[in-house]
């Protein structure tokens, strides 16, 4: 407990030092507010625009969450197919790499063209970008079961369904969570990227990505900073929610979920 308080105090000290440095740069170099607003101005912008920040946060959060959940369902389903045979993996695995390496910025306009602007296409973009780590990690978890464990099941005449539900799937859960943790971060990035292209049905109202575009075109730099802050908070929330579920499901038996990696 004392150590946790220390960690928190250190983090706060660094934060305060960064704010001081920021303010110092403004004073020394006389930066105009439209290029770099003061920390105080950003704080005021957060207070003033709280309702629209909240709306943008909720819209982007919903799209990213939808994309992430869909990628978990589809990713596990695809991993189950991949786990069937080495031959299938060899044939199809390169395409999941493609999924991972294709620049989403380049694909986003295409998806918007095909699906149409709106939350659906943004969700689809978040889904595509978070799919690869789920497939890769879950497949790894499904196929890395020790041979002797499989033999044990076979010795007791286990059915294929028993092998899957009582051995391979539970064994893959820690790996699945590694995948979800990675995917949760990039789902948020995917949703914001999608919104940069998707626009909004009403002027001034949309997700974080849309609002960032809007604020920068209006030179509302303090609001822009507030939006970046909101995007960061959204990413963090996803990460911590996933961490919580991981802890909840694994802490009883799996080492990875026992202690947080922060010293």
């Amino acid at each position, binding site marked *: 407990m004392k150590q946790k308080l220390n960690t928190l105090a250190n983090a706060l000290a660094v934060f305060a030092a960064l704010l001081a440095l920021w303010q110092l740069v403004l004073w020394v170099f006389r930066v105009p507010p439209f290029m770099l607003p003061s920390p105080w101005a950003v704080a005021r912008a957060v207070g003033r625009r709280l309702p629209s920040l909240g709306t943008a946060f909720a819209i982007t959060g919903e799209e990213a969450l939808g994309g992430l959940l869909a990628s978990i369902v589809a990713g596990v389903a695809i991993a189950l197919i991949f786990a069937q045979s080495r031959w299938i993996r060899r044939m199809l695995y390169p395409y999941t790499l493609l999924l991972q390496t294709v620049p989403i910025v380049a694909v986003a306009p295409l998806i918007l063209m095909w699906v149409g602007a709106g939350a659906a296409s943004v969700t689809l973009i978040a889904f595509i970008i978070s799919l690869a780590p789920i497939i890769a990690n879950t497949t790894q978890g499904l196929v890395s079961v020790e041979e*002797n464990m499989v033999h044990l099941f076979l*010795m*007791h005449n286990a059915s294929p369904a028993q092998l899957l539900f*009582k051995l391979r799937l539970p064994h893959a859960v820690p790996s699945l969570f590694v995948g979800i943790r990675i995917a949760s971060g990039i789902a948020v990035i995917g949703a914001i990227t999608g919104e940069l292209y998707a626009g909004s049905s009403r002027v001034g109202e949309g997700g974080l990505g849309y609002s960032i575009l809007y604020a920068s075109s209006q030179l509302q730099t303090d609001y822009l900073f507030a939006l970046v802050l909101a995007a960061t908070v959204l990413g963090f929330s996803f990460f911590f929610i996933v961490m919580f579920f991981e802890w909840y499901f694994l802490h009883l038996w799996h080492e990875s979920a026992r202690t947080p990696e922060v010293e």
Partner: protein
Amino acid sequence: MKREGTVPAVEFEGVTKRYGNGPAVLEAVNLTILKGGFVSIIGPSGCGKSTVLKLISGLTVPSDGAIRVDGMTPKNARETVSYIFQDATLLPWRTVRQNVGLSLELEGASSHRREEKTAALLNLVGLDAVADAYPRELSGGMKMRVSIARALATSPRLLLMDEPFAALDEMSRDRLNEEILRLREEQNWTAVFVTHSVAEAVFLSTRIVVMAPNPGRLYSVLSVELPQPRTPELRTTPQYEHLVGQVSRTLREARSQ
């Protein structure tokens, strides 16, 4: 019981095993293991000891020759056979109790029978106190006890053990050796036990099969004429030491073949 009968539990007739087009891992093995026997298989690395167990269990099939287990093919006999592996192979997401119940669960036993049997076995191997703990909280010796309890839950007639105590310290190993004999006194199963330890083989066995490498084959079958039931004091008697010496010599000959 406890004495070897005259009915064969396992028969190998001219069994040869090779993987793909590789050299023979086992060559022309003829071996009969009698019901009620505790047979240890000992030999240098690479002589195919573990392959013998894999063949009896039907997890692998012979390239040549025939194997009968209880008069059946190995696969058909599986219901009466349990396998204990070198590592405890416990499912880390299940508690001790759920791990012990796994074998019965897979074979479709009713939950009532499972609970009853599991409780009795936990008691038998002295694990009542940790029944609801997870495997990662247990020592190596305790994990192995769980593994033994799980294997015995299905009331096997034949127990295959592949160096189950190899990773344990000597104290735990001795204690589990005594324990496994006690369990055998209570339940009536035949054992095929693969080990690297001559002392362990002599202490446990009614017969010791010494194997030779390149290719893996039977070198010699020795009878262990020691009083039953075996007690820890046996380890300090001259007869025991004499037998350990004899088996060690045979093993050395087999290696230099």
